[in-house]
């Protein structure tokens, strides 16, 4: 332990020496900073142009990330938070901890995006992923009527789980409880997070798992495996839009603005598809990587505005619990 | 002189009174019915039991508030006199140095003590590999190096056969005589008391009586002792 404390001491000593280089601290979710995530490449690319030290701090997932910011409050170490999704934006805005941005660019999102504080950097569609050869239903009603087995995540502990809740609500409104009731015998189980569900799916525990339309791209590009596909649902697919924002209390205001501009530039956006396995918010000049053209593209994109999402969350959660706890 | 001055010793619901003097270098038996408090008396002298009142002194020095290890008292219990994980040498060595390592001189002293009790070649053995009699000898060797002025025996040899027990008691008497140790021993066997101890303390009816001649006590026992002796 002494050794580690010593190492920690060295670390803080070196950062003190480097104090003349400004440091930009970005809080993000854990998988962003992992070696396979965008983090390492983003850090390298930004440090090339910023003459600064980019410090990425990984915190579990988007929800835990927001909790951390709320816990730290106005004297947070973070200058930027990167990794909230639309379901969290409303709560994030309410904290009053975030400052408006100065980014102006043409987003290539399938929906209009106008927000003075939160800047999208990638997006994706939720979808049920299945084995390519399987014959799968084309909407929630068919799914409920079929005997296909699905794995989903709990909306109380995972972002995709919350996304699915919003998906059914956005597509079916007041009929959502009935849809859930019909789906209940298709649901093998509900997991804490995405990893558990996806792991179980790969073990063959179910026919389909809630993930993203981009998931098959990972298998195709990284593993040269075309055995996975995403089912296209004709009521439309709910979107996950991931955003970043500058903290009002940042002491690196200019650098934070520079990062947000960098974030929507080609340098950052071209890293996203094959590291975060999502669509870039601004399609880079070079287009999408090969393999993304094979993905399902929904005819209809569903997305509740942050305020709508926040307003119906508790009700939708109650309906979900009610239908599945029978 | 060991003096118990108006002592009252509590042990749960039971209490024992003792008021007596025991002269130096004497060997005293403690006899009485089972459950009368013989062990309680010894435990109080050794410091394992608090006095409700009264005081215990040795050669005029008050022992009452001293912890067991600071008293000039060594005690052998009914069992648990040796640490099973230590060799005979280490067990005896504890009598000299309970808290540290033995010096070469001290090792020699321990060896001498083991030789004196008749176990010259057993230093490296652990208790489990020794016979009952040998285990008792190791414990006695430790008492020997402890050089305490008072030795209390709470029937440490009860588990040994009659011949072996006699042998041990003789050894104890020899050692006590050699070192000038004051000896008190609980005994269930009147013959043991008669053989070894000129004086005896009768413990009965919540009272420990002052020492009197063993022969007189056994030849003309008071009622409490008589029913016990049968």
């Amino acid at each position: 332990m002494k050794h580690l404390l010593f190492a920690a001491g060295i670390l803080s000593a070196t950062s003190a020496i480097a104090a003349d280089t400004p440091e930009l601290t970005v809080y993000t979710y854990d998988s962003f900073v992992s070696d396979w995530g965008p983090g390492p490449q983003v850090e390298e690319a930004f440090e090339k142009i910023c003459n600064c030290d980019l410090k990425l701090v990984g915190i579990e997932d988007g929800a835990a990330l927001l909790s951390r910011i709320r816990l730290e409050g106005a004297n947070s170490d973070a200058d930027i938070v990167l990794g909230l999704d639309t379901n969290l934006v409303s709560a994030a805005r309410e904290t009053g901890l975030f400052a408006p941005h100065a980014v102006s660019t043409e987003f290539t999102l399938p929906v209009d995006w106008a927000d003075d504080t939160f800047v999208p950097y990638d997006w994706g569609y939720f979808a049920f992923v299945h084995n390519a050869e399987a014959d799968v239903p084309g909407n929630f009603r068919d799914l409920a009527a079929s005997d296909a087995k699905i794995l989903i995540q709990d909306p109380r502990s995972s972002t995709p789980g919350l996304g699915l809740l919003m998906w059914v609500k956005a597509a079916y409104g007041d009929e959502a409880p009935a849809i859930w009731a019909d789906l209940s015998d298709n649901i093998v189980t509900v997991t804490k997070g995405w990893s558990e569900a996806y792991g179980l799916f790969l073990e063959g525990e179910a026919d389909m798992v809630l993930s993203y339309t981009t998931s098959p791209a990972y298998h195709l590009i990284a593993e040269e495996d075309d055995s996975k596909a995403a089912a296209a649902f004709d009521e439309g697919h709910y979107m996950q839009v991931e955003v970043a924002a500058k903290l009002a209390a940042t002491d690196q205001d200019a650098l934070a603005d520079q990062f947000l501009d960098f974030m929507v530039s080609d340098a950052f956006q071209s890293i996203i598809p094959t590291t975060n396995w999502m669509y870039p918010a601004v399609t880079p000049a070079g287009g999408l990587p090969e393999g993304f053209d094979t993905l399902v593209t929904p005819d209809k994109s569903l997305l509740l505005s942050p305020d709508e999402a926040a307003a119906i969350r508790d009700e939708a959660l109650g309906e979900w619990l009610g239908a599945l706890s029978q | 002189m060991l003096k118990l001055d108006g002592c009252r010793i509590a042990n749960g619901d039971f209490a024992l009174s003792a008021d007596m003097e025991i002269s130096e270098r004497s060997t005293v038996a403690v006899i009485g019915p089972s459950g009368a408090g013989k062990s309680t008396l010894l435990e109080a002298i050794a410091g394992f039991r608090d006095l409700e009142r009264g005081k215990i002194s040795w050669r005029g020095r008050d022992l009452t508030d001293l912890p067991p290890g600071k008293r000039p008292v060594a005690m052998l219990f009914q069992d648990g006199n040796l640490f099973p994980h230590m060799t005979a040498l280490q067990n005896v060595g504890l009598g000299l140095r309970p808290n540290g390592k033995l010096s070469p001189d001290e090792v020699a002293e321990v060896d001498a003590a083991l030789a004196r009790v008749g176990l010259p070649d057993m230093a490296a053995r652990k208790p489990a590999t020794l016979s009952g009699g040998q285990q008792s000898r190791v414990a006695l060797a430790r008492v020997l190096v402890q050089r305490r002025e008072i030795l209390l025996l709470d029937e440490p040899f009860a588990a040994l056969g009659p011949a072996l027990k006699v042998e041990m008691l003789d050894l104890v008497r020899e050692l006590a005589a050699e070192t000038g140790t004051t000896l008190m021993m609980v005994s269930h066997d009147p013959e043991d008391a008669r053989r070894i101890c000129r004086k005896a303390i009768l413990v009965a009816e919540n009272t420990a009586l002052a020492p009197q001649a063993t022969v007189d006590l056994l030849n003309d026992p008071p009622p409490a002792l008589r029913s016990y002796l049968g």
Partner: protein
Amino acid sequence: MVGRAQPVNPWPGIGAAALVAALILGTLLAVALRAEAGRGLGPADWAALRFTLTQATLSTLLSVALAIPVARALARRRFRGRSVLIALLGAPFILPVIVAILGLLQVFGRSGWISDLLGLAGLPPLRIYGLHGVVLAHVFFNLPLATRLILQGWQEVPSERFRLAAQLGCDGRAIFRLIEAPMLARVVPGALAVIFALCLTSFAVALTLGGGPRATTLELGIYQAFTYDFDLGRAALLSTLQLTLTVAAGYAALRLSRGDGFGAGLDRAIRRWDGGAVWTDVAWIALAAVLLLLPLSAVVLSGLSGLARTPVILVNAALISVAVAIASTVLLLLLALPMAAAIATGRKGLVELSGILGLSASPLVIGTGLFILIRPLTDPTAWALPVTAMVNAVMALPFALRILLPAARENVQRFGPLAQSLDMRPFAFLRRVMIPRMRAQIGFAAGLGAALSMGDLGVIALFADAEIATLPLQIYRLMGAYQMQAAQAGALLLLLLSMGAFWLLDRGGRWHVEA
């Protein structure tokens, strides 16, 4: 018989207990004080409480009930691979939850090995999801632990007692009545309390195997309150409820487990003469081995294919995990030994209860509380590893105490008077008597502590930054990045490391040398 001075000094133990209680209750308080007005407890929380209690009670009773015959069989039989099997008993416990779930489902799942076999016979697949699935998973996690704790009880019965029984011609049933039943009366309540507390805090396992939100536990509520609702008051409230249940269970266990030790023995190797029915013993051992080994081998098989291409990052993470485990184990012993000694001298209640607290303290609460407390002083990320080591030690403390206590009590009772009359100082008694005489228990406790620390995600997720990550955290990261195969290799690496640490420490301490 000791009515005054004590051979060991209880104060270090009382100090350690106070430290542990301060850590657990202090962090809870820090969270509560930071809370704004939030939602109180609603009907959903009471439903969660009911489910939590139901599954924890069933899982605990079943785990311990099965562990008794298994431990008895293991105590009575000598066979090839016995010590390996006993070492493997520590394994399920240290696997990251997600890995264990995958392993279990590879065997018992809808497309698991058993369902495949049933399919060959034309039968429908196993229906594992539901309350029975939760209980099965908890039995998988806890039966081995219960078996180890109870087996320890058997090993502490002096061999002289069995010799006496054999000499009296006692058969298996008579031995049970005379020797084993009183031993069980002493050991089982503690095991029940420990496992009950563990099952109380289950979250991912209960939810996944439970098959849906019916299987919502309090811990899920705590997680939700922290991350999705940021309702710290609610988190503190639920956590208090959880702690109260644990303390109640612990208190009940303490009341029940009063009983005397077995008196003196001379450390002879255990040997038993009661033949008993060989086949029932074989059946019990086989049952436990199947339940244990099948999911483990699923984990091993899945990991093997990726092991050759283990990413360097996993090796680094493994080194960090080993360092944390070493620190955590040292800390664990520094806390547990004095506490065990203090309890053995009669400072039972509070010291022992504070030891049990660690079981149902939610890592989220401790982590967040520590974060709130540390942050005004210094950068919490710099303290990620020391904090992880400390929290891991506190979490392992209840197990260590269960393991150390009976022996500590026995030693104080048996040798305390002798040590005192020799004027042995408390420290010397600890060093020369307690520690050498408790080597087996210390080794077992240290092994379990090291393995637990190695496998625990604990609070590291709250503190770690990109550069410092333990092996379990890195495994989760891999899974989150679709790298299932590398993650499974990581899980195998973790399993090997933890088992290695456990085996090394446990072996190092074993004193019942068996031929």
